[in-house]
């Protein structure tokens, strides 16, 4: 018990100190709350204030500079001259102008007095007329009288006169007022029109002056900058948001990233940290958008501000557009925001959400590379991705559709029978019977329409069977193609043998390798394979380097590597390949050892053909099964084209390639490959590891993909990504090797994709899996960090779209054709040899043998090819680039090039898509209707001949003629092709300025000069043309399109020989 106090503890104790202390703390916390409310929760306030400071000081620095620039333009002689002209023109019309202005002034004065009186009178009359209109019949007369009286009523005014300052007092009735009013108005309109006419010349000069000024001045004028400065100094510090109601989009990013506000920083002003003197400051989000062109692209009117209004920021960049309370929340980089801001190196992922259907996108090189890798590296062999390698799926659905249509046809047949039965029934009334008969008669027409669709679908299935490719080579050919003992070595040491191969390294035990090798070997087809004599390796090397192999293949190891990385590096091909097969492969890579029957699911041998009494012949022309019932797969599923080499050339190249080997190459013998006991285990393993995703393997042709679908992988909840035992380290920013992660926590999609791609087995770390088949199956691709980043970007962007459908890029018409075309262009690596996108380089362009003057040995760039080429010709050319059935070992157009346009054995469907692609890229209307070429008169023909053979423009010096002696030095195509190959409007534009279309072309520019409405030859005019009034370029085009072999022979006899002294080379 506590001691009894002397004083009452309740009344004697003072609480003053506690009350004082806590009241003080209360005030303090209130102050804190207020500060938090103003700044703590609203960091954008301080950002905006800092922006105002930085931007206005930038503008203040900029304005004098710009004014100085303006001054220097104003003082330039051209400007002065234009200004003087303008002033002179104004002075010339000044007297008349002042007359007109004086009269207009006087009219205005007079109208000023007249108008109010007239309007009042008109109001009174109009009201009375209304009363008259609604009056009863008996009242009408009196109402009419009232109107008449009102019209007669006079008004007295003092109107200023039209001559001078005199005032004329008048008495006018309503009718007179109206007349005078209209007269003055008409006169004034006439005077205004006259004024404009008088000033027209001076105005034109003024506009010229202004446009000269704005052209010379880069950026904004000092006045405009002053306006911006005023705007920024009076800036209202508030939340700045983009609100697209229909898209449910609210983006407040500009509250901090205020430099992105296009009303403050116009599109032609670029703000960077350096310009704002904030370089090195990590917390200064004031730059303007670094790629305004990208914004322009996203608006039909190319207005960047409208694009921003519609799309906002977060749909592309990720992040939480609504959040304003902190950087972390705005960027959405916390575990509760599912769409965090993409990191700088992955920002192109934002394109993928809307552009998932595009294989190639401008402004997105990393994403393009990711997609390219996804296809080329065979990710698609295991992981389905919407749009990638979907030929098999399309084939399935086409076949299903055919079945449906046939079923429908059968139903129609039954329907016809039923209708006729009912019509024939005597109980049916005549009229009804007639209708039934009519319907029965119309159904066969409907059925024939179905037949048309079925026929198209069947064409399509044939196309699709041809289009279906595999990433890896067909393993049915291993027995004829490979050295036996190399196979197990390859499986165990994939990347040691060829570091940049598409084949990933599988995690296999020794026993598994033996079983897989044995299965593959034993399932290989035995032949037949023709024996080939040896060729000349030196010539082979030369052919290999000039025919175009290096557009896709690379050669040389490490730093010595040259060539494209689309196909295999051939540096050690001699260690693995069988010479005889190599010759056949180079001659025609699509040549199968045996055709595959997709219905019977077997490879057909000579015996199967003999059963039907047919020779063992199969190619694109003999592609039916021996029983003639269905199509066979007659080509290997490779994208490698035929270069239309002769057998001797193929032997030479093969003889060269077979020498490419390391001198110490030695593989242990592998007798177990013939052990039949291993086969079944091998089959299980091959199925288990999904080898058939990339390779054609006998008996496993129909195997599906074994991996997870990745179409929406970026949207997968992060909990469903199997970080396994690394989960906790990922959440704490510790990398699998124990080092700290540079960006902290990596428990997110980016972290998962990056680690998985660097080492797919990493998530088995620490797991106890004694059975290899329990381990993660994904093999290791040998990717560079840049490639890992590209694939990560692609996967990060592969999300379930969060924006409304109308924002997604699902184009139709020409844009769809472009979209479709890129899939084929990238599938066959057209860009390995050709330039198709402006600014893109082909693999060949970087080779040493095409540098400097040798650049004209390169294949032609395809800029504007759709505007250049006749689509029907283009289709024919793509189908057969030799443009000949018999003389196939040549280029159809540019026979003078050593490099050869290969035959890709494209399907009809692919050719159609490619032709449409090129037309769409050049904005050509479809279908193509060839313009009518006016026939030449005899005089015109003479003139054209003179131009053609003019010493200042000897066309036939460079253009091929078909004469081998002449063509040896030719650098441009034969004119005989022009008529069917080219489009006349393009040809005319080409003649006028070829360098503009294809920079660096050998075709000279400036051959013609403008004279009034026509183009005339720029050199000394031949006598025949002096009196010609027509367009010279147009005349030449007509002549060219009507060229005949006889005409060409005539020209050859008249022109100098080709000398080959040209630089660059196209057209």
């Amino acid at each position, binding site marked *: *018990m*506590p001691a*009894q*106090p*002397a004083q*009452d*503890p*309740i*009344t004697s104790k003072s*609480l003053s100190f*506690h*009350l004082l202390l*806590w*009241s003080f*703390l*209360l005030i303090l*916390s*209130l102050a*804190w*709350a207020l500060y*938090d409310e103003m700044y*703590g929760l609203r960091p954008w306030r301080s950002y905006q204030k800092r922006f105002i400071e930085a931007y206005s000081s930038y503008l203040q620095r900029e304005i004098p500079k710009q004014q100085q620039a303006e001054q220097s333009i104003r003082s330039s002689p051209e400007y002065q001259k234009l200004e003087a002209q303008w002033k002179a023109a104004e002075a010339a019309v000044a007297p008349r102008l002042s007359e007109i202005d004086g009269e207009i002034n006087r009219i205005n004065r007079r109208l000023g007095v007249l108008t109010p009186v007239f309007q009042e009178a008109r109001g009174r009359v109009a009201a009375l007329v209304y009363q008259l209109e609604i009056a009863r019949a008996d009242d009408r007369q009196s109402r009419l009288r009232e109107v008449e009286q009102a019209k007669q009523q006079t008004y007295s005014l003092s109107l200023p006169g039209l001559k001078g300052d005199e005032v004329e007092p008048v008495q006018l009735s309503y009718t007179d007022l109206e007349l005078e009013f209209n007269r003055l108005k008409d006169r004034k309109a006439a005077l205004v029109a006259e004024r404009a006419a008088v000033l027209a010349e001076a105005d034109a000069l003024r506009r010229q002056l202004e446009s000269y000024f704005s052209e010379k001045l880069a950026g904004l004028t000092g006045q405009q900058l002053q306006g911006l400065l005023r705007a920024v100094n009076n800036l209202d510090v508030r939340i700045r948001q983009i609100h697209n109601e229909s898209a449910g989009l609210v983006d407040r990013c500009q509250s901090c990233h205020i430099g992105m506000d296009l009303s403050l920083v116009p599109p032609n002003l670029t703000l960077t940290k350096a310009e704002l003197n904030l370089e090195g400051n990590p917390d200064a989000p004031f730059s303007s958008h670094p790629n305004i062109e990208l914004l322009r692209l996203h608006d039909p009117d190319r207005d960047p501000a409208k694009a921003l209004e519609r799309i906002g920021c977060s749909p592309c960049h990720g992040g939480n557009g609504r959040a304003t*309370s902190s950087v972390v929340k705005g960027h959405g980089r916390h*575990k*509760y*925001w*599912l769409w965090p801001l993409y990191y700088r190196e992955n920002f192109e992922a934002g394109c993928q959400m809307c552009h998932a259907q595009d294989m190639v996108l401008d402004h997105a090189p990393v994403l393009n590379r990711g997609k390219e890798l996804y296809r080329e590296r065979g990710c698609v062999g295991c992981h389905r991705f919407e749009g990638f390698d979907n030929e098999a799926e399309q084939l399935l659905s086409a076949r299903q559709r055919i079945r449906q249509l046939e079923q429908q046809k059968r139903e129609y047949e039954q329907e016809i029978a039923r209708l006729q039965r009912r019509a024939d029934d005597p109980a049916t009334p005549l009229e009804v019977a007639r209708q039934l008969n009519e319907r029965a008669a119309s159904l066969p027409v409907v059925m024939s329409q179905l037949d048309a669709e079925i026929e198209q679908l069947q064409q399509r299935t044939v196309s699709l069977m041809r289009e279906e490719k595999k990433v890896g080579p067909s393993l049915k050919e291993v027995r004829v193609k490979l050295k036996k003992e190399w196979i197990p070595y390859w499986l165990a040491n994939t990347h040691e043998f060829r570091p940049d191969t598409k084949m990933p390294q599988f995690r296999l035990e020794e026993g598994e390798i033996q079983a897989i090798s044995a299965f593959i070997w034993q399932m290989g087809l035995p032949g037949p394979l023709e024996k080939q004599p040896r060729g000349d390796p030196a010539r082979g090397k030369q052919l290999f380097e000039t025919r175009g192999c290096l557009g896709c293949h690379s050669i040389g190891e490490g730093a010595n590597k040259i060539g494209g990385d689309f196909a295999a590096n051939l540096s050690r091909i001699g260690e693995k390949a069988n010479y005889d097969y190599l010759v056949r492969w180079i001659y025609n890579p699509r040549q199968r050892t045996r055709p595959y029957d997709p219905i019977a699911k077997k490879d057909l041998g000579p015996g199967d053909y003999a059963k039907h009494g047919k020779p063992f012949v199969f190619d694109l022309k003999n592609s039916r099964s021996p029983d003639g019932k269905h199509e066979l797969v007659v080509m290997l599923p490779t994208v490698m084209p035929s270069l239309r080499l002769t057998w001797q050339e193929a032997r030479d190249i093969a003889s060269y390639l077979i020498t490419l080997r390391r001198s110490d190459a030695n593989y242990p013998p592998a007798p177990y490959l013939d052990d039949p006991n291993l086969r079944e285990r091998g089959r299980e393993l091959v199925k288990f590891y999904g080898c058939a995703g990339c390779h054609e393997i006998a008996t496993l042709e129909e195997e599906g993909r074994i991996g997870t679908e990745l179409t929406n992988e970026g949207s997968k*909840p992060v*909990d*469903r990504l199997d970080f*396994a*035992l690394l*989960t*906790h380290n990922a959440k*704490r920013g510790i990398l699998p090797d124990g080092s700290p992660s540079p960006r902290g926590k990596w428990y997110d999609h980016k972290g998962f994709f990056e680690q998985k791609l660097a080492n797919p087995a990493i998530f088995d770390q620490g797991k106890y899996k004694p059975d290899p088949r329990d381990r993660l199956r994904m093999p290791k691709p040998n990717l560079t960090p840049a490639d890992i980043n590209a694939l990560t970007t692609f996967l990060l962007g592969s999300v379930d779209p969060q924006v409304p459908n109308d924002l997604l890029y699902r184009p139709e018409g020409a844009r769809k054709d472009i979209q479709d075309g890129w899939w084929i262009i990238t599938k066959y690596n057209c860009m390995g040899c050709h330039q198709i996108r402006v600014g893109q380089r082909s693999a060949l362009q970087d080779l040493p043998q095409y540098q400097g003057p040798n650049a004209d040995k390169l294949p032609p760039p395809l800029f504007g090819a759709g505007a250049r080429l006749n689509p029907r010709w283009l289709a024919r050319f793509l189908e057969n680039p030799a443009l000949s059935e018999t003389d196939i070992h040549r280029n159809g157009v540019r026979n003078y090039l050593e490099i050869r346009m290969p035959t890709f054995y494209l399907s009809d469907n692919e050719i159609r898509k490619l032709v449409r692609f090129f037309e769409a890229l050049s904005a050509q209307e479809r279908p193509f209707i060839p313009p009518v070429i006016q026939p030449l008169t005899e005089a015109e023909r003479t003139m054209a001949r003179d131009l053609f053979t003019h010493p200042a423009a000897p066309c036939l010096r460079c253009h091929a003629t078909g004469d081998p002696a002449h063509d040896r030095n030719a650098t441009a195509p034969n004119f005989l092709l022009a008529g069917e190959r080219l489009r006349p409007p393009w040809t005319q534009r080409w003649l006028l300025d070829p360098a503009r279309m294809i920079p660096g072309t050998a075709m000279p520019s400036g051959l013609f000069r403008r004279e009034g409405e026509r183009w005339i030859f720029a050199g000394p005019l031949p006598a025949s043309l002096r009196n010609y009034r027509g367009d010279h370029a147009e005349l030449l085009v007509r002549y060219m399109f009507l060229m005949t072999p006889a005409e060409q022979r005539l020209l050859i006899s008249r022109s100098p020989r080709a000398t080959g002294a040209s630089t660059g080379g196209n057209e």
Partner: protein
Amino acid sequence: MWGDWYQLWEIVSAPDNVPIVALLFLVPFYTWYAFRQAFETDRLIEQLEKDPQLAKTHHRKTHAWQPGWPREVHTWPYLMRVEFLAAIIVTVILTVWSITLNAPLEEPANPNLTMNPAKAPWYFLGLQEMLVYFDPWIAGVLMPTLIIIGLMVIPYIDENPLGNGYYTYKQRRFAIWTFLIGFIGLWVIMIVIGTFIRGPGWMWFWPTQTWDHNRLVFEVNRNLHEWWIFKHIVPQNIWAWTVFGAIVVGLYFAGAAYLIHRICMATEFSRKIYRRMSLLQIVTMQILLILMLALPIKMLLRLVFRIKYVWVTPWFNV
């Protein structure tokens, strides 16, 4: 993984868990504080009872009245000023708390994805924890209803007039212990378990053990009739299980009722109070207390002996 202090820090520092961390300190403190006051009052009562003269005039809770002290103390200012001070302190605490910790809004709801562990708000964690031990309709419907009814009937059962307006232990021993067991022993402890102990998969993680989503534990829960010697005794037949369970539960009811009765009859004071109660009051109190006691017993059976159900019937399981 043991000794994972980072894990513990993650749980303790989560904004959701601030009230529970505070609870860990505040509940023991106020329990201790209340008991100190109660014991002081008890001593005062003893002192006053010795001096009937003093008893008639006392108005203080801890000190006997003394000459010279005011006989009465006014609400204003003596009570109001203390309450005012308390109001200021609470306001300061709440202000600072609300500035420094924002409401933990999480990601938009996704019907395709359940978070793991999915936890109820902290004040319902006790109910969620009960789901481990009983079927949902018992833990989620019956028990909460009984808790509410039980709280409602307290004034009708507890007619002991003593202890109103002052802290005392001696005069309200039974009520205090019932409260301590029911609120702190069951409700608070279950909230603490739900917050700190239950991790992914609602598995039992000791503090500083890593919350591993991939953790696997081997636990087999059996019904009572499959356990120990009972599996040899009870026939494998649902009706036998029903009868067996009914017997066990009946035995528990009888035993618990006897125990409670013995506790009520323990002291002269409580006997006095007990005798004053009507039969209805006694029965109601017995049932509520028996059911309350069933919870820790079931928890014990489940956690220590891995017993799933005691009473299996075709209609319900307990």
